[in-house]
């Protein structure tokens, strides 16, 4: 029993209790608030499992935005769900029991929780992580490798450093490597000429690469190896925003004033909001920019930015927000973010690389190109996420003021 498992068990008990309460409680407001609690507990679970980025996203998205959206919707819906005749829905319970039993049956052959020998830890991902790393000092930029460090070596379990065999077909080294032994994701460097598990004709990304620029490997995976997924993830958000505009926006009539009651009598709220909004926005930008170094990135930062604007709209009224950010501007900005992302990808094409091959952006220093591309992409994500979240809130709120 490790600490992680003990804390995990306690947290998951709480989470399960909350989940049952969410389903069973009749008041929809209570249900929405419990959803927020649930998300925050989930964020704790994920911190406990060392998944900082996911925890951050869950706290911002699940605990923050989702709850705001739910409450915003509930304002013009009945407060409680209808009283059900039967407490237990038997067909549903049986279906769930069967599906659950099947899923549990499937877990019986899985590697143990936290088992470093699980295939996922030592098959592809270590290679991914080890492919590229440079010697970078956060403050001073690129540094030469230290004395006696063999960049083409791997570390064995007992800490000894050995060279990778020159014969590409010899993969035995992986058995003794620290990767295979303990599933450790240690950044390593492969020789450009030595490409295990790799067809001929590929050029590897240069060894002087982004893992050094971007210590947060979640970000480097998100924007690098799986950058294409992330582009579409941003598009999903964009689609949601456009769909909401399409479904909820009313045709604007001339001279129709936007009705929204600013909280004029709430002096404390107004003062505190005025004080804190600049900091919230600053924090959002910080999170977007800092995503390469630590937990955070475009999504989390974008959501924080959106929360700043939403707070403004809540306290000072939406007309005030529309004066700062007219709907036309937010509409355009939602698209601009995705365009920055896909435009970066397309720019790589124009510079002679493949789509989203950021290293093509800077011919002199491919690593710098990678870092540049990822930064651009993160900003694109941030813009789209913040503006779409704001648009979604605006659309739901516009409904309510009618």
């Amino acid at each position, binding site marked *: 029993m490790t600490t992680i498992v003990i804390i995990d068990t306690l947290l998951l008990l709480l989470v399960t209790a909350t989940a049952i309460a969410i389903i069973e409680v009749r008041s929809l407001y209570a249900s929405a608030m419990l959803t927020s609690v649930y998300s925050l507990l989930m964020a704790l679970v994920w911190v406990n499992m060392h998944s900082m980025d996911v925890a951050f996203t869950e706290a911002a998205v699940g605990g923050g935005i989702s709850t705001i959206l739910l409450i915003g919707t509930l304002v013009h819906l009945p407060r409680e769900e209808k009283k059900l005749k039967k407490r237990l829905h038997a067909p549903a319970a049986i279906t769930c029991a069967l599906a659950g039993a099947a899923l549990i049956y499937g877990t019986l052959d899985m590697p143990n929780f936290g088992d470093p020998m699980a295939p996922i830890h030592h098959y592809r991902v270590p290679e991914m992580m080890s492919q590229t790393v440079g010697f970078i000092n956060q403050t001073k930029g690129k540094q030469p490798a230290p004395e006696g460090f063999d960049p083409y070596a791997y570390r064995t379990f007992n800490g000894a450093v050995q060279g990778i065999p020159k014969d590409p077909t010899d993969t035995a080294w992986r058995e003794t490597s620290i990767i295979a032994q303990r599933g450790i994701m240690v950044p390593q460097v492969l020789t450009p000429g030595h490409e295990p598990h790799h067809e001929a004709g590929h050029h590897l990304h240069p060894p002087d690469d982004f893992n050094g620029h971007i210590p947060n490997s979640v970000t480097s995976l998100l924007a690098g190896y799986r950058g294409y997924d992330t582009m579409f993830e941003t598009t999903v958000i964009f689609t949601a925003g456009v769909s909401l505009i*399409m479904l909820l926006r009313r045709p604007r009539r001339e001279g129709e004033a936007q009705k929204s009651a600013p909280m004029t009598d709430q002096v404390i709220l107004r003062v505190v909001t005025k004080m804190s909004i600049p900091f919230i926005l600053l924090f959002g930008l910080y999170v977007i920019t800092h995503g390469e170094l630590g937990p955070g990135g475009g999504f989390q930062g974008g959501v924080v930015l959106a929360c700043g604007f939403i707070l403004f709209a809540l306290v000072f009224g939406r007309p005030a927000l529309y004066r700062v950010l007219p709907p036309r501007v937010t509409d355009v900005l939602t*698209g601009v973010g995705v365009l920055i992302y896909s435009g970066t990808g397309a720019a790589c094409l124009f510079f002679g690389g493949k789509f*989203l091959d950021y290293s093509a952006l800077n011919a002199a220093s491919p690593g710098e190109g990678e870092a540049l591309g990822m930064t651009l992409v993160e900003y694109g994500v941030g813009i789209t996420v913040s503006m779409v979240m704001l648009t979604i809130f605006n659309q739901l709120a516009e409904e309510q003021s009618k």
Partner: protein
Amino acid sequence: MFDVQANLPVLIVTIPLIGGILTILTGRGWKPWAWATLLTGTIFYLTLRLIVAVWASKTGIVSYELGNWPRQWGIEYRVDALNSFILCIVAGVGFLTTIYAKCSVEKEVPADRHNFFYAVWVLALCGLLGITITGDAFNVYVLLEISSLTVYALVAMGKDTHRGALTASLRYLILGSVGASFILLGIGYLMMITGTLNMQDMHDRLHSVPGILQSKTVLVAFAFLVVGLGIKMAMFPLHMWLPRAYTYAPSAVSALLSATATKVGVYMTFRFLFTIFGVGFSFMTMPTTWVLALCASAGIIVTGVTALRQTNLKRMLAYSSVGQLGYIILGFSLANVNGVAGSVAHILNHALMKGGMFMALGAVFYRMNRVDLRSVRGLGRRMPFTMAAFVLGGLGLVGFPLTAGFISKWYLVQGCLDRPHMWPLAGVVLVGSLLAVVYTWRVVEAAYFQEPDPGAPPVTEAPTLMLVPMWILIGASVYFGIDATGTSKITVTAAKALLGGS
């Protein structure tokens, strides 16, 4: 500039992505439509080039590694005979439906949001094309969500015609999300046990590491993937979302959905069952053939009978779509060359016929404001081209010789007879055709042998902009029925690749 030929696969997906976003800026009036037509036309042209490139390549596979990451680590686009064919169908039908959409959308969608509508429309195509082209399991999930979200929104846009569109869309959203989550879960189980996300790599791992294929994890992953995919492709007992969604969506959306969305679902099933798990596991180890063939046969019969009882013609066609999907599922569940080839051919043929028929109904709606059996009375004389297209499409559904439906049904029956003890399924195919005869005849009777309603508005033929794409689709379905050599070559090659190649 860059090399278009080398970057074809990625352009097919990113052009609609970027173009779809720019659609918002195109303003009002005819401009969003023109822009969307231009985009979809470009994509169709590119898919044609891609199909040529695939057939010209030695291996029959065009692979594109996004971001230049080696395919096992990054995301790979992998185009072979099968998915270049499906891409072509999706892009082609998408192009024609976009042309068709102008009149229908002007009538059914408020004018101030046409730019948003076409943006979502093009993004839906982008999602569908992306699913079809990718060789990465998780990428499938992300693009699946794009196509699903856009389709929910498009279906809900029928709300100004009938409020049922809203509930249809929400029901689809909930069922679709559950289905997508099952797919995500299945991918997760597979990733846990194989350690990779690339489909080809997964297949190699499953078949090279001893003990994996027999593990309970893979078994459960398979079951959940089949259920999830079954929801997405509207396999018979999981089809509950489909009839309502098709009935209440705007006419153009119904045409697009019936021709592309479920077809892409079937394609995903091909990829998961044949490419990842392999024929041996999917159809020999697991009782998939029996389960799927049973579902498909039940679907063909039950939906055929249900379609008979519908007065709303769109709903009738929707039920007929579930039945026709039954044929497609029946075909590949046989896991022999004729069956799979029939299945692939029916994907094309059904897309052409059903797309054309939904377009015809859209034209009826455009003129008559409703599409029940009563409203088509006497239309055979008033809207001769529209009704003729509908009837030709109906003949295709029946499987009448000289229509494309005949070809695919021929393959299907052959496939049934090739498998021992499967001949009753050939009977099911024939019974389904008979049912199709009956429900098509009801329309023929109303359109050609009954007098128009006294209260019906005097109408004229539909606008040319609706007739042309409709007739291109129907004409193509007849053409492929008469000259089937080209399609047969493609479908049989694709079937052989699916069955033997991987």
